[in-house]
């Protein structure tokens, strides 16, 4: 505690010195310590390899923040994949809680915790906010016999495990599928696949019948090798680019998966610093270019403040813990 206090003091002094010893001795007040943030580039840890949605969104927002000069220092994206996000999460918690290290993840965090793959929980973090998000669809091959979700559910109820669902064990497709299966009362035969590309390969190659895809993946690949037929969308409401796909809620199943882009910080970062980062992100989100990018990439464009984001996540965590108990 003492050390942090002195470090803060040191920062304030350094800040005051660089600003040309402005307003005299009062420079040592907390107000000036607040102004001194950020003093160096802010590290944004992304638990995935470069190129995916979480990485791309972080980079786009970082670029916009720099372009519009929303923060005095740039955001630097640091990719740390592996261990179901545990490596990135631990690195964030190990960093000093001064706001210069933050985390950009999504609700796979909750699944990793439910599966006991990570030694930390959402309570160990401060929530900055949701920068929009995106929901997946459940799809079958275009020439499949099942035209609607009800057809599929009926078939599976009549003959359990007669259709192959390709999932990553202990990942989002597994949990979203299980949420629906528990709600509707059916069982599929599950086959492990590495990621979205592998799931697409197994559907198109006819090794599997059902798979979960992000809406963007679906749009990109709906005409690949015979095509995909979306049966249900797991968003809270329909989205324009795939307006023909009904939501699970509309079909009478209480299942949603909004998977927000969640910005987090290690617990203990001063609230005003979190607010500064949140404001910059929110303003970057408001930019028309970013908005358009979200829409064309089948993502929901919104900003949710930190406290609300944490509450929603905590509710979902409790539900996922229950699911984990049934599938582990």
């Amino acid at each position: 505690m003492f050390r942090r206090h002195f470090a803060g003091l040191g920062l304030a002094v350094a800040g005051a010195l660089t600003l040309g010893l402005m307003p005299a001795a009062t420079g040592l007040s907390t107000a000036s310590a607040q102004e001194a943030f950020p003093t160096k580039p802010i590290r944004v840890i992304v638990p995935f390899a470069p190129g995916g949605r979480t990485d791309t969104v972080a980079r786009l927002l970082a670029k916009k923040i720099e372009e519009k000069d929303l923060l005095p220092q740039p955001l630097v994206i640091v990719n740390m994949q592996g261990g179901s996000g545990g490596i990135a999460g631990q690195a964030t918690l190990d960093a000093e809680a001064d706001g210069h290290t933050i985390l950009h993840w999504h609700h796979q965090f909750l699944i990793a915790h439910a599966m006991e793959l990570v030694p930390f929980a959402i309570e160990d973090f401060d929530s900055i906010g949701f920068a929009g998000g995106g929901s997946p669809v459940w799809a079958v091959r275009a020439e499949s016999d099942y035209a609607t979700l009800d057809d599929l559910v009926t078939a599976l109820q009549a003959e359990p495990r007669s259709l192959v669902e390709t999932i990553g064990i202990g990942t989002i497709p597994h949990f979203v599928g299980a949420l629906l299966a528990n709600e509707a009362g059916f069982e599929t035969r599950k086959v492990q696949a590495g990621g979205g590309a592998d799931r697409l390969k197994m559907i198109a190659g006819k090794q599997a019948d059902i798979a979960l895809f992000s809406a963007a993946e679906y749009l990109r690949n709906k005409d690949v090798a015979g095509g995909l037929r979306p049966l249900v969308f797991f968003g809270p409401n329909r989205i324009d680019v795939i307006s023909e796909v009904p939501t699970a809620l509309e079909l009478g199943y209480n299942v949603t998966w909004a998977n927000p882009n969640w910005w987090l910080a290690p617990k203990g970062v001063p609230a005003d610093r979190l607010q500064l980062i949140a404001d910059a992100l929110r303003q970057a989100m408001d930019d028309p270019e970013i908005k358009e990018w979200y829409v064309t990439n089948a993502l929901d464009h919104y900003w949710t403040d930190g406290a609300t984001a944490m509450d929603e996540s905590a509710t979902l965590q409790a539900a996922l813990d229950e699911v984990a108990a049934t599938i582990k």
Partner: protein
Amino acid sequence: MLEAFQTTFSFWPLTFLLIGTAAGIVVGSIPGLTATMLIALTLPLTFTMAPTTAMALLVGEYVGGISGGLISATLLRMPGTPASIMTTLDGFPMATSGRGERALALGILASVVGGLVSWVFLAVLSPPLSLLALRFGPWEYFALVLMALVMLATLSQGSMIKGLMAGFLGMVLAVPGIDPSVGQLRLTFGFQSMAGGFSLLPVLIGTFAVSQIFKDLLYLNEKLPDVRVERRRIMVGFRDLRTHGANLLRSSVIGTWIGILPGIGGNIAAMVSYATSKNLSKEPEKFGTGHEPGVVSTEAANNASIGGALIPLITMGIPGSVTEAVLIGALIIHNLQPGPLLFTTNPEIAFGIITSYLVANVMMLFLMLFAISWIAKIMYVPRHLLLSGILVFCVIGTFALNNRFFDVWVMLAFGALGFVLERCKVPLGPFVIGFVLSPLAEEQLRSGLMLSDGDPAGVLEYPIATGLLVVVVLTLCWPLIRRQIEAVRKPVG
């Protein structure tokens, strides 16, 4: 396509293609730094470029990066990039026996041929090939990987038992991390850092580069075998095309095919084609001792795998590896959707990638031939400076892989392990092969079993997989069969 050539040959794309290829070769030849890192690192720079220029830069880096690995693999026995790991097996012995320039020349020739062959497939046969690749399910992958493992089992020089032990050790060390089929942590001993297992790069760099550095440190004052390279001797003739023609073509086709299959890339392409060349060879015992066909088959295959990997990327938007995932990311950032629609919505991009790939290969040929006399000068650099320089890059590259220091410790530990293994005359080749191939075999086998509801006989429903498994059994039994045939023949003769 013609228009795409015009776009590619305009000023900016061509300039950045050249920069990309050159940067790729440099980064690729430095142990520890890989093409993937370079591409991920330059990704932000491409945000402001025109999409065609951006893709030209990235494709150039990719081609250069895979090709450059050949140099350090041959001259230092340190794979500059994971894809060139197999090149060390024959390239380095060639270099130490005074045929370094020959190895480099053949490697460059093979790289270019591999690139051109896979380009033909990319330009002409993309859609049908990617459809064919989709037929490869878990059982087919498993059978393919098992075939490579069995064919490579005889790879080791000397004691068969030691080779098998090394392979087994590699397999064991590939186990820690998250179990792919139950999603639970295994063998991490409670260390959170182990949750991601041991990454490929630190293991490869440790086992080959760092262990070599340890070894060289012991013999720092001894005179080194002469591996100097003179430029005028780096020439290959049409004769080579004739002698190695069949090998070049076969390895390029294998490389292209492995590249098309998502999830496996350059290093596995090189392993499979090396194993095939060795098993088809009339003198398999020469492989691993500085045999020219060895270098040819690995370098043709690893370069061809890039063209192959671009096929599902362009036609279906399916990334075959992390590198391709970054390329897709670059397209998405420019609001372009890779996939079958790309040819109709943005043909200049789709064809731009295809033409860039061709031009990058040609540029690579000239850059490598031009630069090789300079690159070879590293052999004149005092050993202690060279080794410490390389070690620095190994540490930087390994750290940059995932931005954490744990990987650096892994690299050093595997360096020590590699050193000890070599001292005990345990070959490193089987060790690395076991480490690379067994996780793939495991995941695919378990997926296959899930597909067949736990029944191993389920594989019989898949003709390709069954066919490959028959090859596996024949390879295993061949020595026995051959002995029988010879025993029968002898009395007659």
